[in-house]
């Protein structure tokens, strides 16, 4: 025990700045930092291939901007319902917690359904993973790999949030429920954050 703590019994020794508030939260942040590097690598590779290509098609002319703008809006809404669920746990209102978690899951599921619709529409229009009628064949490759990688994350998020909904609905331990939901929320907001970058780089630029 430090000298100060010995002199003042009520004072606890200072924590190390490296000691996390929650090891689970720290673990999720480290995972997300690694995952961000995965997405960063994909987007940097996309940039390198696009910059080096003379006949790269103009994305917004061939990909549906209005639909994907709506999908962006949907993910932003689901991020809001996620933080509202967390707020409801703090206020100890289990009914609202379930409602907001269900809305978040519904937002994710709708996003996936719209992505499936978009992919089907584009494939029917000639966009394939190894080619397309508009120019550089890597346009289709990078599009499907990057949006598919993100879609896999949304699918994982929907499964993760459904599990959290089940756990939180059965438990009355507010502190534990808050922490579990906050950690799941970090993942969900990350998926939203990555989509913001994907929407800009793949669809708008």
């Amino acid at each position, binding site marked *: 025990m430090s000298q100060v703590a010995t002199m003042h019994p009520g004072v606890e020794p200072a924590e190390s700045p490296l000691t996390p508030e929650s090891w689970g939260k720290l673990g999720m942040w480290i995972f997300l930092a690694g995952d961000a590097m995965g997405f960063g690598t994909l987007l940097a590779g996309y940039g390198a291939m696009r910059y080096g290509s003379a006949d790269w098609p103009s994305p917004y002319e061939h990909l549906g901007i209005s639909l994907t703008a709506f999908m962006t809006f949907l993910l932003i809404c689901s991020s809001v319902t996620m933080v*509202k669920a967390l707020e409801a746990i703090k206020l100890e209102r289990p009914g609202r917690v379930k409602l907001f978690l269900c809305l978040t899951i519904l937002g994710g599921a709708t996003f996936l359904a719209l992505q499936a619709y978009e992919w089907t529409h584009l494939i029917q229009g000639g966009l394939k993973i190894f080619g397309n009628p508009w120019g550089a064949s890597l346009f289709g490759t990078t599009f499907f790999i990057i949006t598919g990688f993100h879609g896999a994350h949304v699918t994982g998020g929907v499964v993760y949030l459904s599990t959290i909904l089940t756990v939180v609905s059965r438990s009355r331990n507010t502190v534990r429920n808050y922490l579990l939901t906050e950690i799941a929320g970090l993942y969900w907001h990350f998926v939203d954050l990555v989509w913001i970058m994907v929407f*800009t780089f793949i669809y708008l630029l």
Partner: protein
Amino acid sequence: MAGTHAGPNYMVIFWWLFALTVVEVGVIFMPLAKLVIAILLISLALSKASLVAMYFMHLRFERRTLGLIAVTPVFLGALLIFILVPDHSAVLHRTSEAVKITPAAGHR
């Protein structure tokens, strides 16, 4: 309880994100140079990502350790882009050479 900080007004953040998304979609139809549009779009995307990280992910209210972990991939990502820059010019050089060679090859 974890995260006992006073929560931000999430609806204000939501409206900011919504407005920035509308501006982003509007920017691509503006009669501006491609470089200006690219700079605007990337700035808008980074602003939106920062809002999500700072307020929805509570990074603004967290310890510095988590902030450092979050910033690390941004630095590494930027480094990755700079590492790829020589490749960009190499590819462009090769492409321009290919354009010069192709018509000559066609005369044979």
